[in-house]
């Protein structure tokens, strides 16, 4: 699974044609609120119904206070001089595989604050109201058919003297056994010959094998598995 790391979340403000990080930022948050419009009708029964309405977004950034922009970062004092000006911003997300998604939008400051606690460096905080639509650098496709669905459990009978059960469903590519129970007792997977309280799984034949020294006696076998992509 891809992970988004904190250092790969960058908020920049466009000054001219170039984007500059805002503050020496330690934290940032992009928040989107969607208005709820209630459309409950006389035939809605006991359940209220809603539709999405207008969208509003905010951005907040906080970080170390810098006096000016010479460090290549936007200073809060520069922002204080740009009050009532709508700026262009970019949020740049980079994942562990260096794939990038850029969100571009216009925003203006609604709250700028500088604070200092004894023994700590001064902190700057900026809150911004995003105006208008947000554009994405690339369209995110919808997800494919689920690869990680947990399949319906299999219930089988371990016959008298049997040391294994076989089911064709277990031969599907990507099958991963999540759990096996014999007469309600959980078994542990092993790669070799199973001993007491163990089972082995052969995906090519779809066979679950149990301890051969303790064959079955018309006992229930409960198998939970998933199919991964």
């Amino acid at each position, binding site marked *: 699974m891809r992970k988004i790391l904190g250092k790969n979340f960058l908020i920049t403000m466009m000054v001219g044609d170039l984007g500059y990080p805002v503050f020496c930022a330690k934290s940032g948050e992009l928040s989107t609120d969607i208005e709820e419009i209630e*459309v409950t009708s006389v035939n809605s029964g006991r359940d209220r119904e809603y539709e999405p*309405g207008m969208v509003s977004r905010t951005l907040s950034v906080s970080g170390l206070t810098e006096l000016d922009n010479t460090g290549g970062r936007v200073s809060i004092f520069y922002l204080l001089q740009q009050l009532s000006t709508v700026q262009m911003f970019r949020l740049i997300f980079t994942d562990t595989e260096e794939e990038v998604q850029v969100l571009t939008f216009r925003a203006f400051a609604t709250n700028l604050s500088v604070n200092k606690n004894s023994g700590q460096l001064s902190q700057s905080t900026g809150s911004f109201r995003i105006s208008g639509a947000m554009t994405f650098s690339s369209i995110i496709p919808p997800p494919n058919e689920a690869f990680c669905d947990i399949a319906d459990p299999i219930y089988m009978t371990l016959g008298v003297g049997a040391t294994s059960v076989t089911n064709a469903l277990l031969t599907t590519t990507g099958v991963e056994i999540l759990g096996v129970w014999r007469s309600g007792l959980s078994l542990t997977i092993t790669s070799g010959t199973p001993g007491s309280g163990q089972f082995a799984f052969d995906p090519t034949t779809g066979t679950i094998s149990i301890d051969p020294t303790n064959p079955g006696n018309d006992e229930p076998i409960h198998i939970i598995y998933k199919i991964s992509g």
Partner: protein
Amino acid sequence: MKPGIIYRIDFQNFDGDLVRIDIQDTATLIGDFDTANVIGLRGTGNPLSIKVIDNEDDKFTCIRAKQANIEFLSNASYNIGTFADGPDNRFRVEILLNPTSLLPSFLFIGFLVTDDLQQLFLPYPQTVVLTASDHLGLLKGIPLTDDAGKYMKDHYKISYFIAQCLNKTELNLPINVIHNLRVGGGSITGNTSFVAGGPYIATAQTTFFYPGQRIRVIGSSFNDGDYTVGGTTLLIAQFAYIIDGGPLVNESGSPDVIIQDISSTTHIYDTVYIEGLTFESSVNAAQDCYSVLQAILKEGQVLTQFNGAWWIVSVDEYEANPTYVATFDYLGIYQGIVENNITRTVGSLFFSRWANANTNLELERAKAFISETFRYSFPTELICNMTFERGDLITQLPDETIENVTYQVKSFETECWEYNQWQRNDNAPITANGTNYIKKLYYNGAERDRFMHMNEGTVNGQLRSEPLAVSTGDKIVVGISSRWPAGRIPGTTPATLAVELKGDNGKFYYLYGTGSTVQLSGGWFEYPAGSGGILDISYTTSPSSQDYESWQSQSYESQPLPVSGRLFFYLVFDDGADGPGGVTYVEHSDFSVQYLPFINGSYREISGQSYTVKRNELGYLASREQEVFISNAPRINMKGALQILTGGKYWLAPYYYPAWRFALNTAPDQTSAGEYGKLQAFAVWNQNRNTIRKFTGDVIGFGVNWPDVIHKFVLSDTNPNTNDRFFLLISMDQNWKSCQMQATFVECYRSDGKGYTDPLSFKYLTS
């Protein structure tokens, strides 16, 4: 030419449609092919709302004017001051939906109202609130006039009155009408006889013919063609007396003859006339256009603006039948009629649906009865300029001193009075050469007296009035005062007035106003057919020793009129044959005519009529009683009398039928036809005979087929209070950014809601 500067606000609304607000400055005009300077303004988060400002709950509220509230952010260049100056029609507002599409729609057209502009008095940017009106409300201060700005005192089509009123808004929009009453009975088919000796046409249908009707006969053996009905008689069949067309050929009992009422083939607004004096406020002055529209539309139709046109819709037609829309251009000229689907749906499964869970259902109780009253009244001046008030100034005359008071004297044209030596039996008049004028005396600039002055000529004549339409059995009371010059005694019994009746039967009569042993006072005497010579005199003064310098007054009540027709009044110059150099002028004053129609067997008793529909069940206590101002009337010169024009003459239009209940241009069921007042009464009754459902709440979802006042609504969420019903939108406040509106819907039809069997009573009202 077109506006050269346009202030524009564009925004995309919640439904994804583009809305464009154009505020056009008409103070700067450019050529039609030049490019206007478009100045962009920034709309606020609430840039446009459109609402109806007449929000009365009554479905029959005639006028639903609209207003648009526009908001933009000011800056140093464009702010409230940009729109502060100029006349009321300087800034024209046009609001379009999807302006760049092939078929953009008009959400609103109007003008900015300076009174309602506002902005906070603080540094920029601030929200500037502009209000635009469709100017219907401003019609309250504008009198009714014609294209040339003149007082309308003749007959005009209903469409012309409406157009003249609406054009005072200066929007010049076309007019669409959903109001499909048709004059007459449409057509009938059946056994018909033709009698050459009448000439009569007879049919078993007893309510089809009426005087003034223009008919077309199809399918007879010998009598196909167009005819005018002069009168009707009802025996075992209805007989129509033909006065134009033919001659008829005797033909008895021809089956399957089709008789079409030609008046039924055109729209009521293009067929029916009203006399302009209906809308007078005083002599030679008209009511304001808003009142005129209310008088025409009351208790039936609703006027509003929608998609670039004025719409007039009839509440009673919002039912399960197809809807037919008649179109008129902005001058009131009929263009055609088409079927148009005006149904819109509000419901959870539709684009327009209830929002915010605040929909409220209220009820309005059923009525015990409804009553529509039409009062009989006549114009202030029965005869045009009968008080000698009007006429263009001719010249200043020498001052006159009367009883030691010196008056300034002026002469004026004899407006509405035509001078000739008039002859009997409508023979060609002889040109008379006496001079005549209205003489007015002033003291210190204020008028103190006026009268008609007639000078002697070598060929003397009479001043003839404009006609007064009268009916058989009516009476008149005519008065006049006359005098002659000081020291000049006229000969014996000088004449003062002649009154002539031109009958609809083609004969001529005169009124004899002075008693004698030979003829009765006030009697009507027929001129021998073909006889010539000057008119006979009605009034003469007594030959006894009168002071002829003083006003000699006469007044007589006539006998009942022998036939219907038109009355003419003649002011006479008569020197009593005293010879040349004797009497050189005569003056007439205080001319008066009181018209006494014979209605329901009486004179002076009947003041109006009412149509009442009342249920038989007991226990209902609510009622609705309204006065209407146009209707079927017993006399053609009554204010508000609905008339048709046939053969160059105006006739009362007594019958109508609801054409929308039948496929376009098909024959109606004759039982549905009746007087205008009767159909109006049932139309109102059917909106009040059942408990009415009223829904108030928020609706979301407009789209390109947005809900509006002219539409017929289905509320589709299944419920006993909405099923099988149609609703009118009587109030709305639409936010065109969020595409939500506050709306009020009132039930106007349900599948079992129309009834025509409840008792209807017609009653004459007494003074």
